[in-house]
């Protein structure tokens, strides 16, 4: 079993696999996002309570889901790279970090943009937004640590440890913030709720969520491909590939 994984986890195979997958992923992401946007912005009915501003949900919620999902992927692939010393796992983790950070930032800003029309303030210390903010710090810590260490493999392993420590702390942070938020809830319910989701509103959300997942895979593979080009530039297979493919 190991030889199978090691064979497929070798940079060469991964690069060829990525080259084949990238165009498909790119197009399917685009189609899904266009369909999702069409459904979300045009087809889905207006919310009787929040009017049109609720449509921000089709970007905010998938981004929030992705920010959490990608950190989990980073922790798992970091662990794989740390324990089984598979270079590609490290490349996946470090390629995912900027995408995850971008989604977290997107979730934060769209959350504030959605909050403004409803409560008149740009920022409200709501439990989910605060957890998202802390998650952004975790991402920035990961990226900062990775750029601070010169040796690529040491950086990957150190970041894997950080991601694992982070992933253990995420539920604790989330619980603490939720608990802290309910304490200071006070009378006015500033609960940051999604409106009651009619199916016609829910479908676009699921399409967008799927589109974001494919997009993540697409963007991550793009970055992994560049990392392979950088780390394997002296290998014979790379040279043949480049000289062979004279495009």
């Amino acid at each position: 079993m190991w030889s199978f994984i090691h064979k497929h986890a070798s940079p060469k195979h991964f690069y060829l696999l990525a080259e084949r997958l990238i165009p498909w992923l790119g197009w399917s992401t685009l189609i899904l996002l266009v369909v999702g946007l069409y459904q979300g912005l045009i087809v889905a009915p207006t919310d009787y309570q929040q009017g049109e501003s609720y449509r921000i949900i089709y970007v905010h919620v998938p981004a929030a889901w992705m920010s959490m999902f990608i950190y989990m992927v980073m922790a798992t692939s970091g662990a794989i790279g740390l324990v089984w010393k598979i270079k590609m796992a490290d490349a996946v983790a470090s390629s995912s970090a900027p995408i995850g950070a971008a989604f977290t930032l997107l979730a934060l800003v769209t959350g504030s943009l959605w909050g403004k029309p409803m409560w008149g303030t740009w920022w409200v210390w709501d439990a989910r937004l605060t957890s998202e903010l802390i998650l952004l710090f975790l991402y920035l810590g990961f990226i900062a640590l990775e750029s601070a260490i010169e040796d690529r493999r040491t950086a990957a392993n150190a970041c894997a440890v950080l991601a694992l420590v982070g992933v253990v702390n995420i539920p604790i942070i989330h619980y603490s913030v939720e608990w802290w938020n309910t304490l200071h809830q006070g009378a006015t319910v500033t609960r940051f709720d999604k409106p009651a989701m009619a199916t016609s509103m829910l479908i676009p959300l699921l399409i967008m969520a799927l589109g974001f997942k494919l997009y993540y895979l697409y963007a991550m593979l793009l970055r992994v491909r560049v990392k392979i080009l950088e780390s394997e530039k002296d290998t014979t297979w790379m040279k043949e590939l480049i000289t062979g493919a004279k495009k």
Partner: protein
Amino acid sequence: MKNASLSNAFFTMLKRDLTLALRTRSEIANPLLFFIIVVSLFPLAVSPEESLLRTMAPGIIWVAALLATMLSLDSIFRSDFEDGSLEQMLLSPQPIALLVLGKIMAHWLVSGLPLILIAPILGISLFLPGEAMFALLATLALGTPVLSLVGSIGVALTVGLRRGGVLLSLLVLPLYIPVLIFASNAIATAAAGISIKGQLYFLAALFALAVTLAPMATAAALRISLR
């Protein structure tokens, strides 16, 4: 590995770090002075008005304790990294997590304990009511070890870097947030006379989690940083 040599290794490491810290006085004094100065900044910055300071006292003291511990974390591995004794520790047949736990305990005794001893005086200066004093001491007693334990992971990750200081705070502070939330809230609730068992249980749970997992993570991080 006879357990006699295990406990011997642990206590030797603890004694070693304590003697080293006691011989360089400044290592103990600096975090303590920092703690006092930061706390006394708030009345100047916000207002000397009693009721305001009383409500903010738990938060001020705990944020200052957080930052003071953060500053003193560097001393756990920095000098050992520079003179090669960290390498010797990694090459010891004794389990590294145990040796690291000894060093972290020494760091807590040198940095965490003084904070606990001086905190009541600062509490009084911020008009903290008498009922909250026990909560202040209890939360610091349970919380500062977690700060040292979790902080040691961050400092182990950045020990090899020249300018690791700022990076250390970015790595470690987010992980301190649960402790900060439950500790400062416990003091505030106690000040209002309500029982704080729940918060203390949670802090104790964080302590148990940190004391079991953190040394292993720190050992792994050290092995990686010293590659």
